[in-house]
């Protein structure tokens, strides 16, 4: 319990110190040297260990089972999304996630079947980073967290909480093998995206960083960012 409390405090402190700099929703990468090194290390480990394991998992696991496993972990993360929906004063989004959690945990057999999506109750994908952005923290410095991936100081708490959410919820009953399964299935789900990155990017680091900022802005605006921004950005 103390450990969890410390984790939350450290996360809040990090996000408080590392924000309020850089352009609004824009790239601010003052620690590029460290971030590139962190990206390089993570990429090497990924290519030599995690990616081959994820490919092997993809080969031996049928599609329906892969979807079911992803659903189970997403279902556990719905708790955080629902709370953050409420913190952002979006009662409808929060209630949708809560309804998803209840339906998928019961009728959906512990989240294995995503029954709620069939009833048009979509996962709202809210997190604490977005909550801070809604509260006014729209600028933040980029950080590539070793083995966790792209983030900003503002989003760091949610990056950490997201990766540890199932353990935070289930406590010591959550076996380490489940964490391993969570990581491998999430990596398998990203194979197509990383293939696109590898096929398109000349500088994968810059590509990942910019894509991260844009994706975050998209989520902060609930999938509807101001369209004029896309025009203004290119008016030189």
């Amino acid at each position: 319990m103390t450990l969890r409390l410390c984790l939350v405090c450290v996360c809040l402190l990090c996000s408080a110190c590392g924000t309020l700099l850089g352009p609004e929703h824009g790239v601010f990468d003052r620690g590029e040297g460290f971030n590139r090194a962190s990206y390089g290390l993570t990429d090497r480990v990924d290519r030599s260990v995690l990616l081959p394991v994820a490919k092997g998992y993809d080969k031996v696991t049928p599609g329906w089972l892969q979807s079911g496993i992803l659903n189970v972990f997403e279902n556990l993360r719905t708790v955080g999304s629902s709370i953050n929906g409420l913190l952002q004063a979006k009662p409808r989004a929060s209630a949708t996630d809560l309804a998803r959690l209840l339906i998928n945990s019961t009728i959906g057999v512990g989240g294995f079947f995503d029954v709620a999506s069939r009833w048009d109750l979509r996962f709202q994908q809210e997190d604490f980073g977005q909550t801070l952005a809604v509260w006014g923290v729209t600028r933040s410095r980029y950080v590539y967290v070793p083995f966790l991936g792209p983030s900003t100081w503002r989003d760091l708490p949610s990056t950490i909480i997201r990766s540890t959410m199932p353990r935070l919820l289930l406590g010591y009953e959550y076996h380490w093998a489940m964490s391993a399964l969570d990581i491998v299935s999430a990596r398998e789900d990203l194979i197509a995206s990383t293939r696109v990155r590898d096929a398109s990017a000349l500088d994968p680091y810059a590509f990942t960083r910019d894509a991260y900022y844009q994706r975050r802005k998209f989520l902060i605006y609930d999938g509807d960012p101001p369209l004029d921004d896309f025009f203004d950005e290119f008016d030189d």
Partner: protein
Amino acid sequence: MRFTRTLITVGFLAFSLPLAADQAQAQAQDRAKQLVESFHDALVQVMQIPGHGSREAYIEPHIASVFDTSRIAAVSLGRAWRTLPDVEQMAFIELLNELIVATYADRFDAYSRQQFVTDEVKAVRTGFVVRTRLRRDAAADVALDYFLRDDKVFNVVADGVSDLSLRRADYNSIIKSEGYERLLEHIRDKISAARSGT
């Protein structure tokens, strides 16, 4: 009498000019929608064509008529664009066009009942946005927004991630660290990789 006639003329103009502007706007919106939908039809066709070379041959004229490659090239290179002589600018536009064609032929290589749906056309300050969705079996929809100026597409935004913005960040990073000539080599490598399917 003359005053009445002037009054009628002014009144007529006051009503008809905004109407004409609205009509022109509606026509431009229709053109934008048709352009994107015709491109989507071409993509559905190209997904069903075997062989990278054949797919490139099919999609190339569509890319030429839909995308404003010279604007994409200028934005992608940023400041470096302005320092290039005209001949090199033209060569870069051609190379970029080759890359776009090869990339589309590589990505849209398998048809499994994907469908494109147009949601709306929005007029913004300096152009139009055609908002569409790619529907796939057993996967979430992908939001695809096409940004147009002067009746041509200059940017495609997939689930909030702008192709042009990424291209600019990517190219400028290479120019800064390795120089313009190396950027051209990297792009040629990407074209070869797309063609060989690696």
